[in-house]
């Protein structure tokens, strides 16, 4: 039996009806068409589905959609403001912190959650911040360099 699901995604409120066995990632991708959020595994291991839920990072493949009822979500599509990329997105571009790009949305969301919680992380904290996300292409260090640049204030938040 479908249940009502009220969520706000990237600032937009939605009123949906979902089956209780639907995962949050499925609602985002299939119902809302926000395909930036990926799925890379079936075991909560890869982090490609990471989104922000009430300001914290979660693996959207490991959260039942109905459990997110009433929450505010941010997906990778919500990072840019209009036509202005966010500091993290610009830093990822400058530092080549992506290759195939499949893990990138999750990496950005984990990085964003880290900086939301802790604007001045140490290098070790940055590594920990993205440790739940697998990237098979970059070797992570370029992602750490991008986060470092943002922390140093090299990129300004778009107004």
């Amino acid at each position, binding site marked *: 039996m479908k249940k009502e699901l009220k969520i706000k995604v990237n600032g937009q409120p939605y009123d949906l009806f979902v089956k209780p066995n639907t995962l949050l990632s499925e609602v985002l991708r299939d119902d809302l068409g926000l395909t930036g959020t990926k799925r890379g*595994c079936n075991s909560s291991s890869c982090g490609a589905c990471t989104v922000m839920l009430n300001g914290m990072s979660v693996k959207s493949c490991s959260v039942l959609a109905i459990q997110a009822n009433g929450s505010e979500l941010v997906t*990778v599509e919500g*990072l840019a403001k209009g036509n202005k990329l966010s500091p993290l997105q610009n830093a990822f*571009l400058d530092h080549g912190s992506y*290759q195939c790009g499949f893990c990138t949305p999750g990496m950005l969301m984990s990085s964003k959650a880290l900086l939301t919680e802790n604007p001045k992380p140490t290098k070790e904290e940055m590594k920990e911040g993205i440790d739940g996300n697998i990237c*098979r292409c*970059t070797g*992570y*260090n370029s992602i750490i360099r991008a986060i470092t640049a943002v922390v140093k204030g090299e990129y300004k938040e778009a107004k």
Partner: protein
Amino acid sequence: MTTKFSVLGQRVHNIDGTEKVTGSAKYTFDVVLPNMLYGKILRSPHPHAKILKIDTRQAKKLIGVKAVVTGKDTLGHKQGIWRRFPELCDEEILCREKVRYIGDAVAAVAAIDEDTAEEALDLIDVEYDLLPAVFDPMEAIKEDAPQVHDGVELNINITRHIEWGDVDEAFKKCDHIREDQFKCSSQAHVCMETHDAVASFGHNGKLTVWTSTQSSYYIQRLLADMTDIRESDIRVINRHTGGGFGSKFELDSAQFCAAILSQKLCQPVKIVLSREEEFTATKRRTPMYYALKLGAKKDGTLLAKEARVITEGGAYTSMGATALYLTGFFSSFPYKYPNYRYDGYRVYTNTAPTSAMRGFGAPQSTFVGESQLDMMAEDLGIDPIEIRRKNGMTPNYEVPGQAFIQSCGLHQCLDKIDEHIKERGKLPPNHGIGVASYGFMSGGIFNWFNTPYAFSAAVVRINVDGKVDVYTGACDIGQGSNTTLAMICAEELGIKLEDVRVFSGDTGICPPDLGAWGSRQTLMSGNAVKRAAEDCKNQIMEFAAAKMGVNIVYDLDIKDSWIHIVARPERGVSYYDIVKEAIRGKDGVAIMGRGHYTPHRKGMISPAYSFGVQAVEVAVDIETGRYKLVYVTTAHESGTVINPVGIEGQLEGAIMMAGGYGYCEDQPMDDGKILNPSIADYKLIRSLDMPETKILEIDTYEPEGPFGAKEAGEGLTNPTAGAIGNAIYKAVGVRINDLPITPEKVFKALREKEKKKAK
């Protein structure tokens, strides 16, 4: 670093970067078409069995199921990427009579959603007659071993022999000979996007397939082989691909099953392999048993080497035939052996087929070779760097009868690493630095695929506003080839990178290209694009020369979108203005250039080779055997650097992958069953495990490459496992000859060493 280029060597954003950081990049995984169905594949739970009967009636009755197909619904063709050799085309994909490994496909379902398709799989009843199975190649070559394929003697799929000089005579002249044995493990590619395909066959008889692939052309041709649809009626589209690493250039079960289901229904069918299928039913790195004999003079001069290899082939040939050849060739790398002999045997087993993975046999040969070389150096009392200097390849060296090496910066790399190790100074206790040298090819000169086309071809079109479109069959699988090709085009035309767009990997609009494997695209596709751009440039120049009315002895060039006299750069005209007028002057036809590249007279292997040396520092906990990768420094030369950000990414990414191969990645099996088919159980290096990395780029110029460039992709995967092994030895004095070098193996070796000492 040379500064004569305006675009090459610049730190640029990949041309698809903004799509990737905003989540708008569409992968096959994201493709949704109207009226689309979802497919799932039923796979054999048995390593070796006859299929007696497949009953699909119950599955077909399930509401929402639209079609169920089995091997009987196919044409029964066997496919393989070694198309020139029909006996090596041995894989049906949907098995008709026999399954040969756990994961072999036996049926596929198309349904209205994934859940229904999966439910239907449970309703398919397959009756099997279990056959004796064989899993280890050493067992499979025994007289009484079960036969994986009928009529294949001793299960030997392929043999390879490479020889030059007089090896036996040379060993007699050696002061010291070492014989060592090694075992190289399997490895999974673990692309973040699993294999997937959306196939759409229309009533017009045409098939369109969106798929995550390294070679749209190969998939197009192989699908044509398997379905008897004309090649040109099949359009394969690869836009963004979530990683490949060697796993995605053969026809796979997602592509084939989606295609035949769609053919049957005339509805689009999407199949996305689950992560478990990805681990168990796609190809993987070839495990190898290696026996090496190495002979040297007292002064460290290497006189002879003999390598004997038996590889676990798994159930089918796939690209394993190439891996067998390349591991043999690269076993001589990067040294000047006057006498060398290689014998390789690829053996069929009832395990998942083994094939290409980044490095293609060379990570295995580099691990064993570099480990043994360090042992030899120690035996002879010579410094590891010194023995590499003494024997390392140099520019313009000919590997007898095999290859001609033009550019080679190995010795500069050795110098840099030597300096670096000295700078690191005295290390803390139980730390050690190990080195490994390596080399790799820039694309293969092989045509086992039997393509009638040029290896690479490109079309460049200049539009009226000066914007340039590049059409290439090359595939950008994340390595950034579209950016590299755009940079080459922009450099050649003397325009801005932003003025170039790339259309790639779509067989409907792009000229054929063999695709992204063997580190070939920078050199081969790069040359094709460069030549196509040159063709355009010549046309512009003709018009500009006429327009400017310059003395015919003057040379013209374009730089920063300014067409000018080389001797008087201030005299010129705007590229944009000339393009506008040129098109008008050509009766409105856009400026089009064509280019292609097929290697000729470049030896047997590759037109060019890259080289490097890597130093890995480890820190070992001697009580537990647990060690950490502390620091990895790589001195690397890949000719002219086109995209420095891309090279950094390739290098650091290779360390994650090759460090994993050396340290923790493995696919243990029990009776042919892979025991860790999930990312939870398959251990991958994560950010907290990743070492510090440093790159020392060495300047070289490769005459055969576009603007002097050569490969910088796979070769970087070669050295790390060997360097880790050598570093462990330096740190704590134990040597591990079988990969991966796990803490438990180090612990056991340390205990053995203690015991010996006690005696």
